[in-house]
C-alpha cells in the first residue's frame, strides 16, 4: 500500500504542517519506505493479544478537588509571541 501525494497532503493538513511541493514528495517517499518496514508486523499472529499502551498498569489517579496555587498570569504570558490585556493574541477567526 503506497500513499499518493494527495493523501500525503491530507495527512499534512491533519498534522497542521504547511509543506512545500518538494517536502510533500520527500514525505511521500519517507512514509512509503516506513510503511514497507511496517509490513513485517503483519506476519505476527496477534489474535487475542491485548494491546499495551503503558508498560506499567496505570489506573486513574484522583485527588481531592481543591484549588492549588498556579503560575502568575504574567509568567505564563511572558513567552507568548503576542499578548495583550492578559490574553494570548491570535489571528481573527470570525470575519465581520
Amino acid at each position, binding site marked *: 500500500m503506497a500513499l499518493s501525494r494527495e493523501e500525503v497532503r491530507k495527512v499534512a493538513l491533519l*498534522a497542521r504542517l504547511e509543506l512545500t511541493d518538494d517536502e510533500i514528495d520527500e514525505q511521500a517517499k519517507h512514509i512509503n519506505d516506513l510503511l514497507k518496514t511496517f509490513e513485517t508486523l503483519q506476519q505476527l499472529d496477534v489474535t487475542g493479544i491485548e494491546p*499495551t499502551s503503558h508498560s*506499567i498498569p496505570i489506573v486513574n489517579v484522583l485527588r481531592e478537588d481543591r484549588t492549588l496555587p498556579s503560575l502568575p498570569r504574567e509568567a505564563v504570558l511572558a513567552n507568548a509571541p503576542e499578548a495583550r490585556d492578559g490574553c494570548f493574541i491570535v489571528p481573527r477567526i470570525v470575519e465581520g
Partner: protein
Amino acid sequence: MGTLTDWTAHEALERMGRGEVTSRELTQAALERIASVDSEVKAFLTVTPEEALAQADTIDARRKRGEPVGLLAGIPLALKDNLCTTGVKTTAGSQILHNFVPPYDATVVRKLREAGAVLIGKTNLDEFAMGSSTENSGFFTSRNPWDLTRVPGGSSGGSAAAVAAREVPLALGSDTGGSIRQPASLCGVIGLKPTYGRVSRYGLIAYASSLDQIGPFSRDVTDCALLLNAISGHDPLDSTSVDLPVPDFTAACIPDVKGLRLGVPKEYFGAGVTAEVAEAVWGAIDYLMELGATVEECSLPTTEYGLAAYYILAPAECSSNLARFDGVKYGLRTKELAGHIGLTEKTRDEGFGAEVKQRIMIGTYALSAGYYDAYYKRAQQVRTLIRLDFERAFETFDALLTPTSPVPAFKIGEKSDPLEMKLADVCTLPVNMAGLPGISIPCGFANGLPVGLQLIGKAFDEATLFRIASAYEQATDWHQRCPALSV
C-alpha cells in the same frame, strides 16, 4: 591525584567534606574546561557561569558554617536541554522553542537544586529527542570526544559528550528508545534508563510519553547510583510516576555477581552488530562468568519486530504531544500574515526540522481513521508480545546482557538514510517498550572507539544492574580511559 575535572562526583564530595577543595574551585575548573574544549566538542547549547558560581558559593558558605548539605552539594552538573529550568532558556534542540524561557523547573531540576547540585548549563540534543546522533539538532551537531569527526550518539549526545570530555562529572539525559544508553556507549561513559515510573517526567518536554524516562550519565557506577538517588521518587505532578520506596542505590553497588543468573538473548547479536562490538561484549560476558555469574543463552523471539512497532508508537505519541506548538502560547510564530489555521501551519513548517516533520506525519497517518487497527493497535499488541518475552526471560534470569549499540560511533554525515539511522536503536528500544531499566557501561574499544555493554533488569530492580556493573567495573579499567582531546 589528577586535575579537578578528572574527579568523579563522589570523590569530589569526599574532598569537599574534608575541606580540601571548594565548590567554587570545582565549578571554576568545570567552566574553564568548557571554555577550553567545548568549541571542539560542542556539547553545550547554553552555559550559565554566573548562576553556577552563585550556587557554588551558597553551598561553600553552608559547608563552612557546618550546616547540613544535600546529596550532590557543590557538584557541577549538566542538563539535557529538554528539561525545563526556571529562567534559563530551554529549546529541546528545536528552532520552534529557540526563545523559550520556562517559568518553572522540571521536578528533577527542583530535586537537583534541593540536593545542592551546581547547574552549569544545558546540553545539545536531536530536536525533541528524535535521533541517534545530534545531527537532527536545530542548532548544531555535537562531536564525539574520542574522534571529533564522529557523532557522540543521541539524542542525549551533548550530555554524553560533556561527561566523556571531563566538562562535568554528571549529566542528565532522557531516553525514549535508547537516547541515554546509545550515546553513553558511543562516548565511553555510563548511562542509565531507569524503570518507567521511577523518575518524574514533569517538566521534561514530551516526545513519546509512554516511553520517555529521565536518567543519569556518569563516569563510574557509584556516581550513577548517587545521581539516581537524587532524582527518583513519586511525584504528584506526574501521574505515571510510581509510589514505591526508593532504595539507596549506592548501597546496591556491591561488586559481587556470584550466584547471579544472567541471560544473553541471541537475537541481540544478529545482523547489524559488527564483529568488533560482538567481540568486546562477549569479552565482558566471559569476564562476568569468571567473576562467578552463571551465563546462559536465551531467546526473545519478538525482538526483530521491535523496531517497526516502535516507529509506529513513538511517532503516534509525538504527533499528539507536538500539537501544542502552534505559535500562540510560546516559541516561534511565523512572520507571514495568515489566518488562524495558516498561522499554525506556517509556524510549524518554519520551526520543525525534517525528522520531526516526518515523525509527526507518520504518527498522524498511523492514528487516522481507517488505519488505526492496522498500525497503531497492532503495534501495541506487538508491544505486549515484547513485554511477555522479557517476563518469560526474567522467570529464569536476574538480568540480561546485550550490546548497547550495534556499531561504535559513526562519522558525522555517514548515515544520511533516516531508516539506517533508526537501526542504531535496535538493541535499546525494546527495553523502553517493556518499561524496564537498562544501563550501558564501557566494555572495551573497537578501532579506538568505545563499546558499551547493556544490562537489562526487571522492573524496579535497578539494584541488580548496579551490582553487576560494580563487579565489572572493579575488575576492569575501561571507565578510567580518557579521550585525548587535542586542547
